[in-house]
């Protein structure tokens, strides 16, 4: 059996005295789409941000394709912090798409997509632009390269953000509630791009409230509640009856937001 793309072992995370992740165990198989679901405050976004190393775990180990991220085991439950270059190397396998898009406002769409190719990888401007244009075409925005983020709709901005992440050809792409800041009529275009990505066999980890999308595209559903991983399995099993009472409660809350389609 191949190594999982992401392996999370007994991860805890506290902000001050509040523990938001309480011993998470999860593995993300390569080439699959995993959706993290859960009510607000369940810790799903924090978990995703830990996988991106935007938050540091308080204890436990996260491995990306077998390599420890940020901290390595040092025996007897202790861990050592890895060097900045190690962190950068492992992190280069991960791309991230944010809820707020986080496009750099002073650069065009193409500039956003090619920035890291030029600055970080030292690629020539022309070669970077070629890749950038290809990625923009992939998300259906080949004619928007010279627009600034402020001139694009929310859905277009989020697709540029996806292209920006794709340009660095990551092994794993993380999505943190990618449609939560969008007007309802704009979520479709972003979800479609994500669905296409899932079909290409890329490893995706998605925090979302789009339960219909999770049920149809996700190969694995992880349901978090109060910092614990309550359920973990294929959608048919998770959403099939009998359902876990906490999940049932959660689904009821979101029924009017698309969950109706799956029941």
């Amino acid at each position, binding site marked *: 059996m191949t190594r999982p793309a992401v392996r999370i072992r007994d991860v805890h995370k506290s902000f001050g005295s509040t523990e938001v992740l309480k011993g998470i165990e999860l593995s993300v198989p390569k080439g699959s789409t995993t959706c993290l679901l859960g009510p607000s405050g369940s810790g799903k976004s924090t978990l995703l941000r830990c996988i991106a190393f935007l938050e540091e775990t308080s204890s436990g180990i996260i491995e990306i394709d077998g390599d420890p991220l940020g901290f390595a085991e040092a025996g007897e439950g202790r861990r050592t912090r890895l060097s900045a270059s190690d962190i950068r190397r492992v992190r280069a396998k991960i*791309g991230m798409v944010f809820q707020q898009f*986080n*496009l*750099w*406002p*002073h650069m065009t769409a193409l500039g956003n997509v090619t920035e890291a190719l030029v600055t*970080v990888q030292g690629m020539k401007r022309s070669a970077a632009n070629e890749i950038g244009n290809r990625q923009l075409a992939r998300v259906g925005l080949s004619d928007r390269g010279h627009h*600034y983020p402020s001139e694009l709709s929310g859905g277009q901005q989020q697709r540029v953000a996806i292209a920006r992440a794709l340009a660095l050809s990551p092994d794993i792409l993380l999505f943190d509630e990618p449609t939560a800041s969008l007007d309802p009529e704009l979520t479709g275009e972003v979800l479609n791009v994500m669905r296409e990505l899932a079909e290409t066999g890329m490893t995706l980890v998605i925090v979302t409230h789009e339960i219909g999308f999770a049920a149809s595209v996700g190969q694995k559903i992880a349901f978090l509640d109060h910092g614990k991983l309550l359920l973990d399995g294929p959608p048919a099993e998770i959403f099939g009856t009998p359902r876990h009472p906490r999940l049932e409660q959660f689904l009821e809350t979101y029924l009017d937001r698309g969950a109706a389609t799956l029941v």
Partner: protein
Amino acid sequence: MSTRLFELMLWAAGKTVLLSAISIAIGLAIGLLVCAAKLSPKKLLSIPATVYVSLFRGVPLLVQLLLIYNLLPALGILVPSEVAAIAGLALCTAAYQAENLRGGFNSVPRGLIEAADMVGMSPWQQLRRIRAPIAFRLTLPALVNEMILILKASSLISVVGVIELTRMAQNLSASTFRPLLFYSVAGGIYLAICWLVAGGGSLAERLMRTGSSR
């Protein structure tokens, strides 16, 4: 007012603009250093920077100017009064500009830096490519405002003997006994310069907001 006298006023106005512009530029450079020191985690840098900002913002500019103008010769440094005036204005505006810049850097949305982090930029690359350009755009309105403040405050350097717009108006009113005329003309010129700077500032802001793509 004869053309000759009006020309004198305009020449003095030019000097006001020139001295203010030099002070703003030097003040921006010092302000950047002070801002960097204040944002530094090292106390050895951040505490002196904090004291600098508090001191130069807490003492009236007139007192600063009088002090510098008299302190330099007392220390054996003999410079033209223009230089002392620029030093005074620049040191003062630096404190304000440092605070403006700090505000700009602190208002760069966290997510934009996280996005830079995720694509592998080093801290230095993040500063150069993301934080500094965005902070500069956020600081621009405050910078324009500071330019206007310094243009007006530069009238105080008349008391250390620099012949600029205010001093010229003073001299001409004294010799012609027409203070109403000359101070009104001086006021009008200050007003025009301030409006020009404000107008230029909002134009620059508009260009930057759309990203100057068109």
